[in-house]
C-alpha cells in the first residue's frame, strides 16, 4: 500500500510536470477551422516520434498525454460543434442532442490514426459507443455501428447514461479551451 501511495505521488508530480507542457510542443496547436469547430491536430499524417525526448519515459509520451487530453476536449459540444449546437445541453430535445452527437463523432474520428498507433481498444468504433459532453457539462453515451461507415450515428442515446456535470442542468458553461 505504501508503495502504491508513493508511486501515486510520483505519478502526480510526473503528470502535472509533463502534461503542463505537453500541449505546447508535442502536437500541432489546437486551431479553429473555417467551419467553426476545433481541429485537434491529430488527423491524417500523425507522425509519432522515434526517440524519447527529455523527461519522457518512452518515445511519444508527451504526445500521448496531449492526445488524451484533446480527445476529452473533442467529446465536448463546445469544441466539436458549430452554431446552435454549441449550446446544446442535457435539457435540449433528442434531435438537437443527436445532431450535436453526430458532429462530435465526426471529430472523434479524427483521432483514429492517433489511437491506432497506440494500440487503443476503447475507441468509439471498437466498443460501439462514444461519449458526448454537453454545454452544461452533462454527458451521455451514443451508439455507433461500424468504422466502415463515415456517417450518421443512430438517433437514440443509450438509455440511462446521462450523467450530471458540475453546473446545473441546462446552464451553458464555457469550456476552458474552446470557450
Amino acid at each position: 500500500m505504501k508503495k502504491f501511495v508513493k508511486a501515486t505521488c510520483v505519478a502526480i508530480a510526473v503528470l502535472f510536470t509533463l502534461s503542463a507542457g505537453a500541449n505546447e510542443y508535442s502536437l500541432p496547436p489546437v486551431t479553429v477551422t473555417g467551419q467553426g469547430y476545433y481541429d485537434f491536430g491529430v488527423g491524417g499524417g500523425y507522425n509519432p516520434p522515434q526517440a524519447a525526448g527529455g523527461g519522457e519515459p518512452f518515445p511519444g509520451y508527451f504526445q500521448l498525454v496531449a492526445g488524451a487530453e484533446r480527445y476529452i476536449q473533442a467529446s465536448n459540444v463546445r469544441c466539436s460543434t458549430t452554431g446552435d449546437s454549441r449550446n446544446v445541453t442535457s435539457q435540449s430535445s433528442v434531435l438537437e442532442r443527436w445532431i450535436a452527437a453526430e458532429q462530435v463523432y465526426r471529430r472523434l474520428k479524427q483521432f483514429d490514426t492517433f489511437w491506432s498507433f497506440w494500440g487503443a481498444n476503447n475507441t468509439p468504433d471498437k466498443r460501439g459507443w462514444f461519449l458526448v459532453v454537453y454545454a452544461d457539462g452533462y454527458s451521455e453515451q451514443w451508439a455507433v455501428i461500424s468504422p466502415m461507415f463515415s456517417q450518421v450515428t443512430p438517433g437514440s442515446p443509450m438509455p440511462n447514461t446521462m450523467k450530471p456535470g458540475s453546473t446545473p442542468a441546462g446552464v451553458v458553461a464555457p469550456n476552458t479551451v474552446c470557450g
Partner: protein
Amino acid sequence: MRLTKVKAAAAFVCSLALFLAIYSASKDDAESIARVNPTAQHSEPRATVSSPAELPAPVVAPPAAVPIPIKPLPSMHQQLMSARDLRVLYLKLLQQGDEGGGLYAMNILMRCSAARQRQFPITWVPQSVEQAQAKALTEEQCASFVGSELSMDAVAALARDPRLQNDRLRSLLDTWVRESQKTEGRSTALSAVLQARDPLLLEQVAGAIFSNDGKITFDGKIYNESYAFPVLSSAWISAICDGLQTQCGQLGDPYLMEACINQNTCASTRYELFASDTERRFGKEGGALFQAIYPRMVEVIRNQDVSALIPKTIN
C-alpha cells in the same frame, strides 16, 4: 540503470492510471479514454483497403423466411433506397412531414453532409469497379445540394422546422428515448417502434435497445464480452432487412455503399457485409455471436416481439 527503467515504467503506468481516474471522477466515464498499450505500437495498423476476397465468408446463410403476413412497407424507405437525386426526394419528404418525412429528410441531410465532408487523398484511386461505382453513385445522389444546405446548422434548422413537428416517426423516436429510461414505459414505447415496421426508425434505435441499466442484454441474456455491444448492433441493422423483407441491402443501401467506398468491402447484402465485418473486427468469437443471435433478431423484428428486448428474466 535497471532501477531507472523501473521508475520510468512505474511513473508512466501510474500517471496514466491517475489520468484515467481524474477523467473518471469528472465524467464518470474513464472508459472514454482509450486504453493505451505502449508495447502495442504498430500492432494494429488501421484497415485501409481490402478486397472482398480477403474477408471471411459468412458461416451460414440467413434464416429462411417464415411465411407470415407482411404489411406493406412505407414507400419512403423504398424511395430512399432507389433515389438517384436525394435532394429531389428531400424536398418531397418535407411535404410528408406528418407521415415520417421529417426523419427521412433529416437522414438525407446528415448522409449527404457526411459524404460531402469526406476527403479522399490526392493519390486515391478506386481498387475495384464496384468501389468506383459506389463512390460515383453516392456523389451523384447528393450532387444537387449546395454546400449551405448540408451544413450541420442547416440540419439543426430542419429539426426545428414547423412542417415536421408532427412527424409520426420522430414522435415515436422521441417517445422511445424518453420512456427508455423507465422500466414500465420502455416496453410500450418499444412496441410502438416495432409495430411501425419502418426500417429507418428501427435503425435509429440500434444499440440503445440492448442497453439496460448499464448491462448489454438481448433475449434474456446478459452479454459481458467487450465485443458484444457492437456485434448486437450490427446484427440488428442487418436483421432489419430480413425481418421486414424490405429491399435494403441492394445498390443504394447506404451501409453497403459506405463500406464499399471506405474499405473496398463491396458486399451484396447487409447480412454478408456485417457477418464478415464482425468476424474481421472481433475474431471468431464475435462472428459466432453474430451468427447465433441473427435468426432471433429477425424473428423479433418480424413478429414485433418486444419481450426479447425487455429484460424481465435475466439469466
